[in-house]
């Protein structure tokens, strides 16, 4: 625990130093401090996970009236681990990135605090401490989203949405916690855990759902997600990476913490609702991911999709736990944590690669990119690896994690009964659809963005990014591969971390050479072996071909149905790529399609100009949130008539109340 405090100190030194230091050293020193902080945190969390011990820290000197209560257990250590691993990579990345993007001190100042608050959230052990660190996390991230406000008109809007949604979420969490803490007469989490069974079902349900909504909104689950696809893309890429890769996890942490520890005995139907929300998020996120053309926006939606998967897993685990099948509940939740690790790493990688692409081309719109694999091969390779991971292609991390999730869901279907089983089946279908859509989305991203011909001059003149940025993305890409081929080690880690949730039972899988062999599941995977087989096959084929055929390749123009064309505009764009799916899911996506044909003045039969626009907006935002906003504005306009400036009216209000006072109170 004390190591963590030192790491906070290091971070703060970095941030305050960035206020004082000159431009030349500011980023270097701040990034160094963040990386150091990350290293210390990851060391500490790893040692906590491996020892399985819980350490606490209490002080009344901080936070008036309440005092701070901290407790570091393996579960929270796991979240810290993910956050700090990502922070290390991002810290290295920033060395190169900030130099070009912004010269302001504020982001460098705030960033370490953002990181620190993300470490504080999982170790908070009382309602007040939690809310404080939660809100600090919110506020620092809000400020970071605003970093590029001078260059970008949208960041204001994004920040506004984000701020509002996160505030609503916090309010919901706040009430939920208060119900818990007043029902149990405790405000420390560890004491709430002890006495939460004394709560009535209604109290528990109310608290659970309020907390769930709040955390789900931070995690970005549909329909509380609207802020996410706005805020994550608007932040500078390192921040997006942290937000999508680490901050979102804390929403998941909240859900796990609430449903599995704070409220000890849960109801089955809660988890069915949770699965429903997860499924909707997964499908909705994946759909929007497919139809968007802005890389970062698309990545943000894919975060919603992945969060959906995790929530489905949590729901299934909760159902298993309520069905007293703690063995598999533990397995399921470990799967969720594993998926989270994988997601954090590949999403971090993808966002950082997107940042690199923006760095070298100045654009994130897929419809303007193309041919980057040849122009910036290293960055593109990293992006590709990220895309393969997220599409769950073996042997990358997404495959292993989704396999564990799938197995967990399959087992849940086997072990549950009745409506619970149906719910999990529903979740599994959503999982399947989402994973298919994700693959499509990332074929689109890489295919349109990296392959083909450059669609704009930006892409034409792309140059490779500085080595620090490359190093960081390579690091993450390598992690994707490592996590993918030796999933056993990581699943072991997650099982150790989540052991706390279900202390009694233990499923003992065999983890040999990183493979996962589950005797109780009668199945196994060994991605490393698959990789070896694949490599052998590949090499053999290549050798065979080399031996058999020696003909050279002739480079020509692309075939154009007999025409010569070298126009890059005739390529498929991201929008056209997604068009069939958009059409299939038109009821959900509700795209705004507009075709304007203007004719030549003389004759209607000669077309002058055709403009086709195809805009897919977030339909939930459009049909749920915008009407609410409009209603509030209307009310405000109506109410403002009351304050019409007339002294007489103001006084007469008082007069009426005075009469009432005289009448009533005597």
């Amino acid at each position, binding site marked *: 625990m004390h190591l963590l405090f030192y790491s906070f100190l290091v971070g703060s030194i970095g941030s305050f130093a960035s206020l004082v230091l000159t431009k030349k050293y500011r980023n270097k020193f701040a990034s160094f401090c963040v990386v150091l902080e990350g290293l210390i945190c990851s060391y500490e969390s790893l040692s906590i996970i491996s020892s399985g011990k819980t350490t606490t820290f209490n002080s009344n000197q901080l936070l008036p009236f309440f005092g701070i209560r901290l407790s570091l257990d393996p579960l929270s250590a796991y979240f810290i681990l993910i956050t700090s691993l990502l922070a290390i990579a991002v810290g290295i990345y920033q060395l190169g990135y900030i130099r070009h993007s912004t010269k302001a001190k504020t982001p460098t100042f705030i960033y370490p605090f953002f990181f620190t608050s993300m470490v504080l959230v999982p170790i908070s052990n009382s309602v007040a401490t939690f*809310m404080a660190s939660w809100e600090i996390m919110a506020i620092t991230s809000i400020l970071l989203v605003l970093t590029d406000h001078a260059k970008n008109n949208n960041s204001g809007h994004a920040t*506004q949405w984000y701020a509002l949604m996160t*505030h609503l979420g916090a309010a919901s969490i706040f009430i939920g916690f*208060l119900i818990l803490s007043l029902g149990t007469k405790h405000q420390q989490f560890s004491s709430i855990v002890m006495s939460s069974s004394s709560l009535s079902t209604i109290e528990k349900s109310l608290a659970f759902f309020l907390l769930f909504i709040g955390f789900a909104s931070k995690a970005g689950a549909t329909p509380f997600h609207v802020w996410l696809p706005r805020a994550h893309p608007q932040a500078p890429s390192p921040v997006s990476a942290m937000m999508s890769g680490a901050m979102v996890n804390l929403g998941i942490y909240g859900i796990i913490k609430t449903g599995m520890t704070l409220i000890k005995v849960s109801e089955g139907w809660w988890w069915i609702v949770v699965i429903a929300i997860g499924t909707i998020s997964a499908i909705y996120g994946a759909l929007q991911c497919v139809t968007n053309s802005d890389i970062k926006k698309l990545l943000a939606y894919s975060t919603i999709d992945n969060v959906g998967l995790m929530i489905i897993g949590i729901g299934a685990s909760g159902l298993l736990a309520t069905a007293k099948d703690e063995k598999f509940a533990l397995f399921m939740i470990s799967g969720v944590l594993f998926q989270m690790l994988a997601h954090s790493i590949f999403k971090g990688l993808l966002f950082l690669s997107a940042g690199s692409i923006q760095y070298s081309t100045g654009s994130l719109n897929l419809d303007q990119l193309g041919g980057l694999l040849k122009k910036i091969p290293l960055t593109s390779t990293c992006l590709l690896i990220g895309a393969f991971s997220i599409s769950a292609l073996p042997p990358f991390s997404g495959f292993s994690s989704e396999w564990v999730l799938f197995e967990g869901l399959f087992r849940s279907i086997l072990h549950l009964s009745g409506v619970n089983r149906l719910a999990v089946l529903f979740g599994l279908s959503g999982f399947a659809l989402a994973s298919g859509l994700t693959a499509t989305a990332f074929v689109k991203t890489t295919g349109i963005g990296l392959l083909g011909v450059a669609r704009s001059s930006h892409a034409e003149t792309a140059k490779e990014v500085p080595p620090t940025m490359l190093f960081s993305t390579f690091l993450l890409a390598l992690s994707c591969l490592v996590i993918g081929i030796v999933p056993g080690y990581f699943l072991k880690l997650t099982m150790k971390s989540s052991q706390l949730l279900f202390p009694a039972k233990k499923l003992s899988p065999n983890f040999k050479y990183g493979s996962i062999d589950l005797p109780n599941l009668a199945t196994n995977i060994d991605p490393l072996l698959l990789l070896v087989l694949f490599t052998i096959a590949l090499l053999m084929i290549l050798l065979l071909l080399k031996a058999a055929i020696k003909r050279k390749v002739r480079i020509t123009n692309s075939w154009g149905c007999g025409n010569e064309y070298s126009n890059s505009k005739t390529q498929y764009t991201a929008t056209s790529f997604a068009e069939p799916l958009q059409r299939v899911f038109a009821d959900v996506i509700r795209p705004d399609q507009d075709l304007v044909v203007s004719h030549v003045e003389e004759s209607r039969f000669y077309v002058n100009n055709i403009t086709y626009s195809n805009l897919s907006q977030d339909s939930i935002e459009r049909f749920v949130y915008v009407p609410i906003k409009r209603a509030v504005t209307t009310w405000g306009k109506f109410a*403002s008539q*009351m304050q019409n400036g007339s002294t007489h009216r103001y006084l007469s209000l*008082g007069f009426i109340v005075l009469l009432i006072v005289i009448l009533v109170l005597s």
Partner: protein
Amino acid sequence: MLIDLILILPLTSILLSLLFRWSVVLGATLAFFNLALLIFGIVLAFNIETTGPVTAIDATFYADSLSSFMVIVIGLISFLSSLFSIRFSIKELAKNQSTLLEISRYTLLTQIFIFTMLFAVVSSSVAMIWVAVEATTIATTFLVGFRKNKKALEASWKYIIICSVGVGLAFVGTLFFYFASAHIGGPISSSRPVSLDWTFLIKNSKKLNPQIIKFGFGFILLGYGTKTGLAPMHSWLPDAHSQAPAPVSALMSGVLITVAFYTILRFKAITDIAVGRWFSQDLLIAVGLLSLLLATSLLITQKEIKRMLAYHSIEHMALIALGAAAGSEIAIAAVLLHILGHGLVKAILFIASGEMLITEGSTEIAKLKSLLTHKPLLGGIFGVGLLALLGLPPFSLFTSEFAMMKSEISVGLGWVVGISLVLMAVIFGVVVSHARHILVGESSGRQTLKTSKLSNPIRASRLTTTPLVLGLILSAAIGVVSWPLQTLLLSAAKVISG
């Protein structure tokens, strides 16, 4: 002795500003005096902590930890405000918007204003508190009308009429308390009316006739509520706060309204014992929720920063009222912390808006754009201040709101918390939206940068920004660190919650 000093200090300031015309030296001296006031307040608080309440001049003045706390609040805000007054005055004179005489008069009135507030919080007699509160209205009317244009005159007219009526009603309430106290044998009509003393009232409050006290408290709440900016007589507040010069708005919004609320708290303590807690609770909830609803509804379409901040004051007063309704010791301590935090942050924001008026020439939301781009420091202060005002940690308003709501729920007012959270969420959304317009703006960043550099050559002054930044840090510090404030808050809260 300390109380005497605390009163003599502003009297000296008044004398100085009467004797001398305004100059930078005078401004600085006054600022120094206000700083001294703050320090005396702190010393007083420590004194009281060790020796108990102190009195002065034949017990005409009385200070317990609650009073000393209020002195600290007044001292702090006055200091900030008087620092900015220097900048304000220099600019006024430089632009020839005011004559030296007007500035001198402004300075004098401001000092009188501070004096009356101090007088209110250290008076032992509840009637003298009334006299002081009424005097604040008189002192500030001309400050509100400082600009002497149509709007300012209108605002000051509304201000004095509505507040006089309101505070008049509070006097009726005081009379009834006196009446009740007289009937239990409190001496009447001597030159030192013990029966109106707070100490006498609170000591004998069990004996007071509950029905009369109920009647009186209704008037007190309505009357001082006017001055606090609580519904239904809140209407003067946005006008007055928006028209007054920024340093005065800072004082009014930062402390004046809370001094009025301080009075309500004193009466509430008596009422609670005489009648039972439910009574003041019901009334405060009604008033608080109504005010919160009003503030929320009217914030939605705000077009001007200072009006927006003024409605924020109404919101926060409503929150304080709701917190006071909970009534437990923690709740009152949180209310007091909120008073301090709100005063500090609100003063900072008003001063920042004054600086905007100087540098940008306007405080209309529509006219301010991308402030963060071309005045990063000022824009940053304003933005962070708003965040603090919206109750986000690490600023103290978070802690106090959290504690207030927690106490509300623990006395069974969960529904109140629910409603207020919804309303606050609306406020949050609205304010963030306004802030976006001001800070980030719509137009293309680079263009604004160029044009604004040309059109706004005036830079934000260090004299203003440094104290503001320090103030924000202070606000964060009192929200995070318990020592030494928590002890003071709790013992001050004990005064009210018994």
